[in-house]
């Protein structure tokens, strides 16, 4: 047994409490869900670059409605098929010359264009300014994609929420409906819908929306099934909240990350479908243009005038790449646990 140690009371000295008052304090500000995601997104350099590229394209495409270098629909047969010409630049491909029958000729002189006339990206077969047409086409492509995605979102989220929340035979039936729709190739559905609605901007938008909501609906349903077992939903039910209010106040906020991520993946696929259909010839009809129709026009004589195909192809590809990289970044930011 050890000796008992006796300590006098004055061998202890009380600490100054006031010094440690904030040891439990959380110094960093509380982050909301969005702020937290943004903090993670900022660290992802490629996603930020993609976002900036997208913003630039959006501003240019929608801004061009107000300040376009030329009227995208103004036909000028005399100045048809002119190659790109940048004032003061003398690099083949950007100086207004073309290779014709083996020799390089100045297309602008040949067409009798004035000295001050120059088209940054050349003109098409009707003498319309390519740059204006591409901006105009990008605007239509983006509009179609975004409106289609919004409709898709509305249908998909409503269907998924309802199916998951109701459960039972309703859910079972609604899932069978989705399975049937999913076993028809999307493109075939789109084509059938367009045939019925007549080709045009609104029908293509609706067709894309109606055929692509199933993925969203399935994701939302799966998550709703999980969420409705949560205690806070039970509490809300016990307190007598109506189903609609629970959906808006409790389920939707918790589904928001899935919705945002899925939306960002739907937009590029809608852009793809629109370009695809317009390229094939059943999408946007003349005189309107989209990236798909421009590419189709350019492809017709790309042996001789390849620049008419390059620029729409580049713009379409860059937009698609930027959207996909940005969507990947958003997924990592909103949902760090998902693999990807």
């Amino acid at each position: 047994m050890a000796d008992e140690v006796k300590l006098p009371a004055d061998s202890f000295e009380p600490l100054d409490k006031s010094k440690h008052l904030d040891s439990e304090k959380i110094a960093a500000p509380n982050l909301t869900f969005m702020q937290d995601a943004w903090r993670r997104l900022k660290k992802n350099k490629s996603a930020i670059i993609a976002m900036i590229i997208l913003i630039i394209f959006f501003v240019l495409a929608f801004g061009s409605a107000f300040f376009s270098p030329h009227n995208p629909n103004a036909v000028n047969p005399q100045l048809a098929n002119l190659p790109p010409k940048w004032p003061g630049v003398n690099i083949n491909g950007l100086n207004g010359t073309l290779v014709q029958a083996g020799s390089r000729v100045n297309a602008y002189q040949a067409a009798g264009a004035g000295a001050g006339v120059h088209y940054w990206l050349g003109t098409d077969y009707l003498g319309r300014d390519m740059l204006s047409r591409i901006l105009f086409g990008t605007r239509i492509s983006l509009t179609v994609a975004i409106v289609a995605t919004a409709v898709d979102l509305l249908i998909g989220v409503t269907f998924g929420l309802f199916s998951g929340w109701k459960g039972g035979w309703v859910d079972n039936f609604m899932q069978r409906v989705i399975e049937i729709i999913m076993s028809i190739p999307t493109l075939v559905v789109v084509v059938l819908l367009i045939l019925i609605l007549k080709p045009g901007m609104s029908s293509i938008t609706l067709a894309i929306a109606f055929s692509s909501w199933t993925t969203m609906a399935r994701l939302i349903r799966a998550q709703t099934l999980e969420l409705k077992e949560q205690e806070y939903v039970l509490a809300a039910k016990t307190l007598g909240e109506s189903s609609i209010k629970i959906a808006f106040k409790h389920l939707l906020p918790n589904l928001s990350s899935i919705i945002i991520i899925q939306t960002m993946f739907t937009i590029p696929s809608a852009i793809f479908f629109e370009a695809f259909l317009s390229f094939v010839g059943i999408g946007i009809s003349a005189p309107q243009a989209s990236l798909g129709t421009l590419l189709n026009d350019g492809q017709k004589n790309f042996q001789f005038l390849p620049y008419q195909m390059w620029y729409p192809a580049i713009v379409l590809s860059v937009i698609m790449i930027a959207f996909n990289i940005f969507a990947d970044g958003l997924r990592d930011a909103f949902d760090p646990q998902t693999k990807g």
Partner: protein
Amino acid sequence: MAKYLVKRIFYLLLTLFIVITVTFFLMKLLPGTPLQNQQKLSPSQQHLILKQYGLTKPVWQQYLIYVGGVFQGNFGTSFQFSDQPVSYLISSRIGPSLLLGIQAMIIGVIPGILVGALGAIKKNTWVDTTTTIVSILGISIPSFVLAVLLQYFVGLKLQWFPIADWGGFSYTVLPTIALAASPFADTARFTRTEMVDVLNSDYIELARAKGLSKWGVIYHHALRNSLIPVVTIMGPLAVNIMTGSMVIENIFSIPGIGEQFVKSILTNDYPTIMAVTIVYSVMLMVVLLITDIVYGIIDPRIRISGKSN
């Protein structure tokens, strides 16, 4: 398994029936007849032509005749090519489409798996970065953009392969590459994700601890286990290829179903549109069914639990 199969086939037939019904009535809603130069024909001539196509009967009779015909492989007569049965039109064109599709699947999926696995093994090195960039490009760049680029550079400038048309093997090279890009990118990405997961698991740790060689671990344990989920994306990949084939066949003027489908759409050839819709749906459903069965066979966990969900 047998019970599951029966159930699946029942659903497949039900879906097929719904597809046939919906397309039939949708097509009935559309204006347009097989008559050409309608103004020049007398009413009795018009009636004769319509009768030849079976369009004078009431709609419900036409429907029953059509459904009965479809199950015997008879899709009616084409509006565009008079006197040509649609079934002949399709069967004579399915060869090139299938050939391209299968080639694209093979040269897309196998390299995709290898590249994806390599990316996962060399995670966070330049190899991984390169494969990630390649797969993002493959997913993002639409197949028809790639097709025209290939046509321009490889076909026109380098003259390695024919620009278009259909002949021997060399004619299939460019369209196959254009079609295979998206399945390649999808598989590479998916395999990489799965493989990264598998490489972090305990059984890989155990295999290493047992003293297996690095490549032994990768081949016997990591790759095999990451391939199981890869089977599930075969369905979506087949859809990608079908979608792509419509426009790729057009660009390269290949006499396949996709090219015919686009032509029929542009000329309002309804019997052919319906038939191609049904053929595409059947192909997709069969691919989905096969992948589900294969998945059940190769994944012991599903095999044992009997896939009852």
